[in-house]
């Protein structure tokens, strides 16, 4: 495996200690990644050197900002292999992007007798918008369940597609809990055979694997800037040109119209149609820097690196008595490992990990239906990224072993209250 250790120097935050000199081991990357200096500088530079509102201002700063904003769109379009730049729409985040598809495409196309097919492993961002819309329109939502080994076989997907004939199949390319990724191209092809439209939630895929929307052939794909080393406040909606053109606009306001009268409005062309209001300008410029950074290092290298670390950690965790890893033993795995301890609640685990410098998440990770299906209320999740090290993976394993030990019941007695 190519060492990515040199990358650590690009991330200023990794130099900090958590408290009392305990170094930081940032294993909360599935929630949000850190930023290299090139991204932070791109944002500062925008504000210090050439910022103005974009969209056809006839003065030098606005020309420069517009040019950089649209260059970002080009870079992101080529990052995901889009056919047209204007198929890339900037939104406030992956969540906003899914809501846009739900309200615009869904509002136009979903009928009371229709079915939307999801997997039980979806993030709330890919569940709640459909539930909100279903409450209005009245269509059905079906969930593909997991097998006992946490897997979801393509055969089960095929059968569900055949039996439900969903109008939409919306699924995550990679689970933010199970540490698995799904065969997007294959499932998309099956869905298209049934006439289903496909939305792929790539929030956990974009940071870690090379995406080609044309090869995947999904109709819609979304991801977030802050999970690919980019800024907060920006997300990407990719849609096929023809679909985006047929959809009504979602948010209304400046920039998305070609004409407004007191009687009504005419919609602007793509991508402006879906970018109402002043867009996330510095965020787009930061996102471009992030995407360039990842591309330079190479998505393949990143994927391999973080898989190595995650499998190392997973192997170690599985050895510890009373620790269960929530995810399959084999198959297509990513840099995420979630687990539960028999003696300690996920919150106490995360808290105790933090004492040891390790940033990990505890809770349901916005996947309550998945946790419920697994009979769990909370898990602890470690998620690796390019800047993590084997030492950090080992530190995690040792720490978890200690914590499991520490919280072992010892037959303590509460001091009786003096009355």
């Amino acid at each position: 495996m190519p060492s990515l250790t040199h990358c650590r120097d690009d991330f200023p935050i990794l130099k900090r200690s958590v408290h009392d000199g305990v170094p930081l081991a940032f294993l909360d990357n599935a929630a949000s990644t850190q930023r290299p200096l090139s991204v932070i500088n791109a944002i500062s530079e925008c504000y210090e050197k050439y910022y103005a509102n974009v969209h056809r201002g006839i003065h030098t700063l606005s020309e420069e900002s517009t040019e950089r904003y649209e260059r970002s769109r080009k870079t992101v379009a080529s990052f995901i292999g889009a056919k047209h730049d204007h198929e890339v729409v900037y939104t406030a985040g992956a969540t906003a992007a899914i809501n846009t598809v739900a309200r615009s495409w869904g509002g136009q196309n979903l009928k009371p007798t229709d079915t939307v097919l999801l997997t039980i492993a979806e993030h709330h961002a890919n569940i709640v918008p459909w539930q909100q819309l279903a409450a209005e329109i009245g269509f059905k939502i079906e969930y593909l369940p997991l097998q006992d080994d946490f897997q979801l076989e393509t055969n089960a997907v095929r059968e569900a597609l055949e039996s439900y004939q969903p109008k939409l199949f919306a699924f995550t390319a990679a689970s933010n809990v199970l540490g698995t990724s799904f065969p997007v191209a294959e499932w998309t092809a099956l869905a298209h055979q049934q006439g289903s439209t496909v939305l792929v939630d790539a929030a956990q895929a974009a940071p870690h694997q090379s995406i080609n929307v044309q090869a995947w052939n999904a109709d819609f794909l979304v991801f977030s800037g802050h999970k690919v080393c980019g800024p907060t406040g920006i997300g990407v909606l990719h849609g096929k040109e023809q679909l985006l053109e047929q959809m009504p606009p979602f948010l209304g306001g400046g920039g998305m119209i070609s004409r407004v009268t007191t009687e009504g409005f005419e919609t602007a062309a793509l991508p402006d149609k879906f970018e109402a209001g002043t867009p996330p300008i510095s965020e787009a410029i930061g996102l471009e820097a992030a995407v360039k950074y990842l591309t330079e290092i190479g998505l393949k290298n990143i994927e391999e690196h973080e898989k190595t670390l995650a499998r190392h950690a997973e192997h170690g965790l599985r050895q510890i008595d009373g620790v269960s890893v929530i995810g399959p033993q084999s198959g297509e795995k990513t840099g995420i490992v979630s687990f539960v301890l028999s003696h300690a609640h996920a919150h106490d685990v995360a808290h105790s990990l933090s004492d040891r410098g390790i940033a990990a998440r505890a809770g349901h990770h916005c996947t309550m239906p998945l946790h419920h299906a697994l009979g769990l209320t909370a898990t602890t999740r470690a998620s690796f990224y390019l800047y993590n090290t084997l030492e950090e993976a080992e530190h995690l394993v040792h720490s978890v072993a200690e914590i499991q030990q520490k919280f072992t019941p010892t037959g303590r007695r509460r001091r009786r209250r003096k009355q």
Partner: protein
Amino acid sequence: MIKMPSEQDIYEEHVLDHYEDPYHRGPFGEATHAHEANNPLCGDEIHIDLKLSADGKVTEAWFDGEGCVISQASASMLVETIEGKTLEELQEFSAEDMLALFGPKLTPNRQKCCLLSWRVLQSAVHSPIDPSDDDQEGASFSGPSLSEES
């Protein structure tokens, strides 16, 4: 900059004692008032049963639940403390008092774990167990919200 209290501080003997050997944990058949709620952050659940006397005193308090050390130990401390108190005294028992009762200093996110039982208690006193059982006002909390993590 927030100083994250270290493990030793939070999981001190007193807390772990209450966790492993809680006061009045379990079902309680004689409750006159009860309420339960969960903390969506971690799935922690707390149920509180109260027996209130005619003159508005807590004659007995029990809790049941599942969750992290802090939520469960703090619930144990709470029910132990409130027995014998009047309703006015309960109303005056603030979130700050609850955090003080717990003892170790908590960061904002973990305060939510500690305050879960306190919130449930505030609702329980308004939730009599009787035929007119549909008093739902206890369901809406004031104070910091208990939302999920991402």
